[in-house]
């Protein structure tokens, strides 16, 4: 029997899922993969489709291999393509990474007549599960039968704030002396500021967020080799954050850097989230997630230097305040916000306002047709914190009656409710490996597959 897996969404998560399935299959003739993606750039998605060379990977090259068991896979690909750049270039452009992912799943020169991997330029609008598999409804009215479906859709609902421009489709055709407002002060704000600087922007750039916290810069680290046995999993948020602060203080007193502790914790963040009580998860999201994000998701030193320069020259101004609304005016967009510690709202007048807030919670009804139809059919439910859909520990979709699906699985940010940290390649590639082993039914196959040098 030929196993047919449909992957819905061809961004980085979908490409990683496909690459791991291809690598781990035993019999090449017996696996068919279909990626359903409306856009052309497979592998790029929101993360890697930017063609801007100032938009760098926010993770070092040596952590970005698509395959955890082969950590230098990306490094070697860069060298083969003459993009290595030696030791100085720890952070490469994101578009380069998009190319790498696309190549992982590109057809081989000696491809069989029926390709193992097919890309369908459609949108999936609904799913129907039956005894032997799952059927995808496509936007042209046709349907696609498969044994398993993997949701790799992300969970962005970009029409949530219609008066804010989307950072990744925004066109820079404005007067460069006019003010611009960036809503959010995370890594997307850094990207947008660098784009504006590259385009010779001279007007003020306002970056607005509740606490005005910017991503910390990367430094060379020696991650602390923490074991799950060292970390007080299952304790409350208050206890856990006290433990983290104490551990960092002790490590710094011994001459270390706080980054060593954060990076040492990183392999365990999903375990930590899984054991964190529900109330504590809520408290974390409310009080500490921006602090965590700015320390965990850091920016390359070269970006940090340019941001510091822009702030020093007064071009980039960080505004602390709560975003309330955006209104279109004749001259551009007005952003209404409440300055921190103030009861009265203020207005920032700008020619453009860009939404740099990153991942948001799902709000219902969502404009994402597939997700909404699955919710309506009781095939899926929103997770308890509205971060995405509800998936179980094995990344199987949980339906409206609390039952785990044996046919529909998830990968990447759509599974944020189950894992929290599932937006970066080092986390998603592990998930892809687990999922491939589960669907192909042969755990432990990965080692022998990589020895044979498949892919």
């Amino acid at each position, binding site marked *: 029997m030929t196993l047919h897996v449909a992957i819905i969404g061809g961004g980085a998560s979908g490409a990683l899922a496909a690459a791991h399935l291809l690598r781990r299959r035993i019999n090449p003739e017996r696996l068919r993969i279909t990626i359903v993606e409306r856009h052309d750039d497979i592998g790029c998605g929101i993360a890697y489709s930017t063609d801007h060379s100032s938009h760098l990977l926010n993770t070092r090259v040596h952590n970005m291999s698509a395959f955890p068991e082969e950590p230098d896979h990306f490094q070697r690909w860069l060298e083969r393509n003459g993009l290595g750049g030696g030791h100085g270039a720890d952070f490469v452009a994101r578009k380069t990474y998009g190319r790498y992912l696309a190549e992982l799943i590109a057809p081989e020169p000696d491809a069989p007549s029926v390709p193992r991997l097919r890309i369908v330029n459609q949108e999936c609008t609904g799913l129907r599960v039956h005894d032997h598999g799952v059927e995808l409804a496509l936007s042209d009215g046709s349907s696609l039968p498969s044994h398993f479906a993997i949701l790799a859709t992300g969970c962005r609902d970009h029409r949530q704030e219609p008066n804010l421009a989307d950072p990744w489709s925004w066109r820079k055709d404005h007067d460069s002396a006019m003010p611009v407002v960036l809503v959010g002060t995370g890594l997307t704000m850094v990207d947008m500021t660098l784009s504006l600087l590259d385009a010779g922007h001279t007007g003020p750039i306002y970056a607005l967020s509740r606490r005005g916290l910017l991503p910390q810069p990367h430094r060379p680290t020696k991650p*602390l080799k*923490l*074991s799950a046995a060292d970390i*007080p999993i299952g304790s409350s948020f208050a206890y856990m954050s006290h433990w983290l602060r104490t551990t960092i203080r002790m490590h710094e007193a011994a001459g270390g850097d706080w980054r060593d502790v954060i990076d040492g914790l990183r392999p365990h963040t999903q375990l930590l989230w899984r054991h964190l*009580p529900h109330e504590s998860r809520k408290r974390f999201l409310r009080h500490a997630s921006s602090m965590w994000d700015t320390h965990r998701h850091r920016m390359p030193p070269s970006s940090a230097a340019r941001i510091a320069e822009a702030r020093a020259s007064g071009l980039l101004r960080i505004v602390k305040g709560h975003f309330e609304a955006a209104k279109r005016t004749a001259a551009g967009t007005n952003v209404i916000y409440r300055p921190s510690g103030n009861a009265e709202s203020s207005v920032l007048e700008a020619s453009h306002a860009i939404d740099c807030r990153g991942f948001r919670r799902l709000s219902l009804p969502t404009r994402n047709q597939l997700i909404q139809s699955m919710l309506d059919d009781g095939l899926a439910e929103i997770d308890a914190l509205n971060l995405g859909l509800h998936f179980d520990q094995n990344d199987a979709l949980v339906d409206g009656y609390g039952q785990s699906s044996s046919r529909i699985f998830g990968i990447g940010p759509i599974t944020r409710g189950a894992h929290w940290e599932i937006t970066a390649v080092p986390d998603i590639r592990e998930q892809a490996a687990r999922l491939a082993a589960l669907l192909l039914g042969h755990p432990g196959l990965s080692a022998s597959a990589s020895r044979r040098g498949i892919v």
Partner: protein
Amino acid sequence: MLSMKGKYGLKALYHLAGLPPGAMAQSVEIAEKYAISKKFLDAILADLRHSGFVHARKGRGGGYCLTRSPDSIMVGHVLRVLDGPLAPIHCASRTAYHRCHDCPDENACAVRLTMLEVREAIASVLDNKSLTAMREMVEAETSDLEQALAVS
């Protein structure tokens, strides 16, 4: 090694896991049942309260109860809080690390490397054993015993 603190803490939580929903138990009741000094038990319960495993209510009708369902509280969670990192030997922990005074090179120490593996095994057992599972083990044992007595 399991300390007295860890042992008594688990017994107290085991007791609380057996309470009907909404009920509370006083520390004196737990102390008497398991023959623990009340002063020691109060200190342990205070630690369990700070780490978010038990609620305490003062006054008449007050006492202690679990903050969440007993099947989501694992033995490993509790022991990390009461006894520190799960480690059979001090040099096998990163956060509660002490070097052995007679050790010339800990990276080449066979005992330490073995204990690092032991530590992972300990964690995988304790992190999958919930308070509910503890109660079920005891119930299974007791019913076995009853069956054996009934047969003889």
